[in-house]
């Protein structure tokens, strides 16, 4: 006998109402129930950071949360950050600094960096690397990602 729970959650500003099994992972809920496939799943045990989203403004691993736990909360995924026509400065910076190769780790890294840059508008390299220490990338070797963050910080403080 499977039990289902109602979930009412705001994602990227839109309210969604769904009924889910308690074991449904938040990552699967976002990707397959809501069709927001920008958040990626890579390890499903909380070590790689690809599934990072903002939960009430905090970066969390969506593969380590249950969809039911999102009831009444606010989520921001990479789809809510910007669009191809209207990129967030962080996305623009990544584009210019060649911070992206296969792009699979990218959404998780972007979402990790959004609250980080809010709290640390002028980070040094050490701080940046500590901030993304919970995100794995197998393509870039991280250097261009760090460059992208520095560039983003410049862009974002310039626009203040």
């Amino acid at each position: 006998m499977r039990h289902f729970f109602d979930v009412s959650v705001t994602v990227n500003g839109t309210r969604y109402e769904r009924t889910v099994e308690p074991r449904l992972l938040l990552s699967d809920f976002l990707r397959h129930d809501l069709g927001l496939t920008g958040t990626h799943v890579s390890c499903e045990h909380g070590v790689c950071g690809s599934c990072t989203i903002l939960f009430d403004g905090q970066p969390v691993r969506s593969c380590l949360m249950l969809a039911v736990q999102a009831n009444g909360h606010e989520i921001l995924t990479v789809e809510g950050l910007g669009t191809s026509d209207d990129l967030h400065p962080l996305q623009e910076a990544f584009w210019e600094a060649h911070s992206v190769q296969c792009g699979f780790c990218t959404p998780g890294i972007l979402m990790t960096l959004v609250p980080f840059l809010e709290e640390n508008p002028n980070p040094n390299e050490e701080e940046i690397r500590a901030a993304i220490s919970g995100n794995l990338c197998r393509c870039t070797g991280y250097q261009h990602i760090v460059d992208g963050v520095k560039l983003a910080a410049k862009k974002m403080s310039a626009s203040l």
Partner: protein
Amino acid sequence: MTKKYIGKRIKRSEDPRLLTGEALFVDDVEIPGMLHAAFLRSDYAHAYLKSIDISAAQALEGVVAVFTTETMGDDWQPGPPLVSPPPTVEDVIFHSRTQVPLVKDKVRHVGEPIAIVIAENRYIAEDAVDDIVVDLEPLDVVVDIEKAMQPDAPLVHDDLDSNLAAHIKQEKGDYAAIREAADLIIKRRIVIDRGAAAAMENRGVVAQWDAKSQHLTVWDTTQAPIPIRNGLAARLDLSEHQVRVIAPFIGGAFGPKMMMFYPEEMLIPWVSIKLDRPVKWIEDRYENFYATTQERGQVHDAEMALTYDGRILGVSDVFLHDSGAYDPYGLTIPLNTQCHMMGPYDVANYYSESKVVFTNKIITTPVRGAGRPQGIFIVERLLDLAARELGIDPIEIRMRNLIPPDAFPYEHKIIDQAFAPLIFDSGNYKPVLEKAADMIGYDQFVKDEQPRLRAEGRHVGIGIVPFIETTGVGPYEEPG
């Protein structure tokens, strides 16, 4: 007015989609009515499959089908091999053994798939996998490639009389003779570990069979969709125009996602046709670590013979190469290793002998270098050791051995991975090495910085390795 692009920074055109989460990866594919697959995989590296009871799994609510080798019936077949088998050439032994879609009688590596469950979602499919009762009789395991070649080693393939998958010898000149004339022999045993590519995106296959139009569409995390299309058409008795394989955005590959005809790549389309439903299988990280191919494991006994002034007289290498449980990738990797052990150098005498060994591990197929890095590492390592012994600067010793520009096309007189003669068509190596050394400030570092740092108690090293990468793999079209 023409615009100059060479040397300019160009932003990639695909980045906006990747940055905004709008890029399609295989797991993003959603088709109405799509079913989900999960595999029962072996926990044992080597075991007889005695029996399997899928009844409880089949009875679970939400499960649509469970397949085993038995229930696949005549549709079960091993392989196919991923590269053409080697031609019958002297000094080459090759026993072809290819991977299977599902285990038939014997498990040969941890993670080998035994059964596939098709259900409404992956959660239920995994529940059903837990309900399958399988009786495996564990056998002694062979993991170490040297132990695998011992006479009493457990056999990965019972129909062979050893774990020797292949044996290739290649020779040029006469190393044994030149060895006697050498001023210095550098001899080392070098062990290179096996490793996994571990791309961020795990593998996945989505297959959609349309019975009305008799058309199969497959989304696959593959680096090579065309061979997959061709192979699937052949296997499923379809014409190539009936099959479309789509390789969308891919989250890293590094070799193991290339035309492997993995069991899953063969099975998922078959299931889709069988059930007349779209089917998705996405690998999880567990599976990625033991059911996606790996590479690199080799043990070398290598030797270089030189003169006092650092001229390489010859190179000799005997090595074991870990193939894993099967060898569908033929001799590509060990041949590449053999082809790179002379580096970009003018070596007149070469002896290389490779034994490819079956072990109870996931198969090895090219991962970033496909056997070349091993060869390069060894020749360069031996040269560095020789430089130290002879008191010659490491760059200088290389300069003395680089193939000179007037020697091209340079015929190595051995064969490459396409079983064609290894020829370096052109090159001018000295200026490249000189420029590299100059760009990193090699001389200044060695003369000034390094001694200064050493006096501070800091050991800081510098290394330069020139290498040539064989490319342009055949077969070739030839005029006339």
